[in-house]
């Protein structure tokens, strides 16, 4: 049986404290790309009781995604937005989800991301990562952006880190390991990077200053 909403909130408040949980519950976070990074980021944030997630991906679940992305074999062929929404609702039934099955570009990014307090970049291609960083940081001056760059391969887990680039821009990953080097992707190392990104979201929300800009990593 699914717990009632107030039971879920009470359980979260027991773990995070009431004040912090209220910050999480009132936050809107966008996740751009729902692959290995984005599906894991979304699940961490849903479990933490983030109030609303904006989920964006144009693609469908493929058999080659299952080794690192949070989908099930029964969901092959579904849009990732639909499949992840289904999975997130099973974990956190009262979370608010807004799903967009579109390809993000310079022209639609501002409309899609307008409502988000914090944006997680979780694309696959380096060019798309750079496009989102430039678009958000140039045109959306009050938004936080947390990018993922460098999590391919089977190198040490310890090289995945979070780095503050500006007051509003953080990068997670080793910033070196490139999928195009043919090193493959491993669920555990991709999850580490996703966990860094999700954790940075929670750290920004936990900041008690008005603009939340004085966090150093």
């Amino acid at each position: 049986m699914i717990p009632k909403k107030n039971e879920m909130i009470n359980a979260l408040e027991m773990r995070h404290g009431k004040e912090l949980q209220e910050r999480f519950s009132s936050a809107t976070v966008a996740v751009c790309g729902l692959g290995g990074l984005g599906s894991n980021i979304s699940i961490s944030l849903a479990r933490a009781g983030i109030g609303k997630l904006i989920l964006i991906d144009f693609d469908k679940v493929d058999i080659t995604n299952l080794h690192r992305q949070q989908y099930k074999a029964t969901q092959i062929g579904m849009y990732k937005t639909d499949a992840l929404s289904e999975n997130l609702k099973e974990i956190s039934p009262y979370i608010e989800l807004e799903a967009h099955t579109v390809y993000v570009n310079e022209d639609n990014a501002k409309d899609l991301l307008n409502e988000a307090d914090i944006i997680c970049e979780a694309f696959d291609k380096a060019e798309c990562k750079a496009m989102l960083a430039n678009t958000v940081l140039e045109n959306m001056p009050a938004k936080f952006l947390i990018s993922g760059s460098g999590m391919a391969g089977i190198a040490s887990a310890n090289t995945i880190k979070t780095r503050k680039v500006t007051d509003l821009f953080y990068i997670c990953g080793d910033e070196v390991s490139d999928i195009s080097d043919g090193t493959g992707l491993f669920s555990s190392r991709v999850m580490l990077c996703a966990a860094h990104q999700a954790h940075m979201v929670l750290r920004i929300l936990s900041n008690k200053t008005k603009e939340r800009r004085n966090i150093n990593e």
Partner: protein
Amino acid sequence: MVKINGEILDICGMSVSEYLKTTSYDIKRIAVECNGDIVPKSKYDETILKDGDSVEVVSFVGGG
């Protein structure tokens, strides 16, 4: 002197575009930050590096 990705370089007076041409960065995969703010791609030509500027070129790699 200009600090770029931690390295002190004697490139005052050069534009961001001119500096990038001296490097191997792929322009489609980067974002450039100068003194805490992002430099819009449309302004790489007209942004002239000045003495004391602190610049970072963020170069993204694929995978996600």
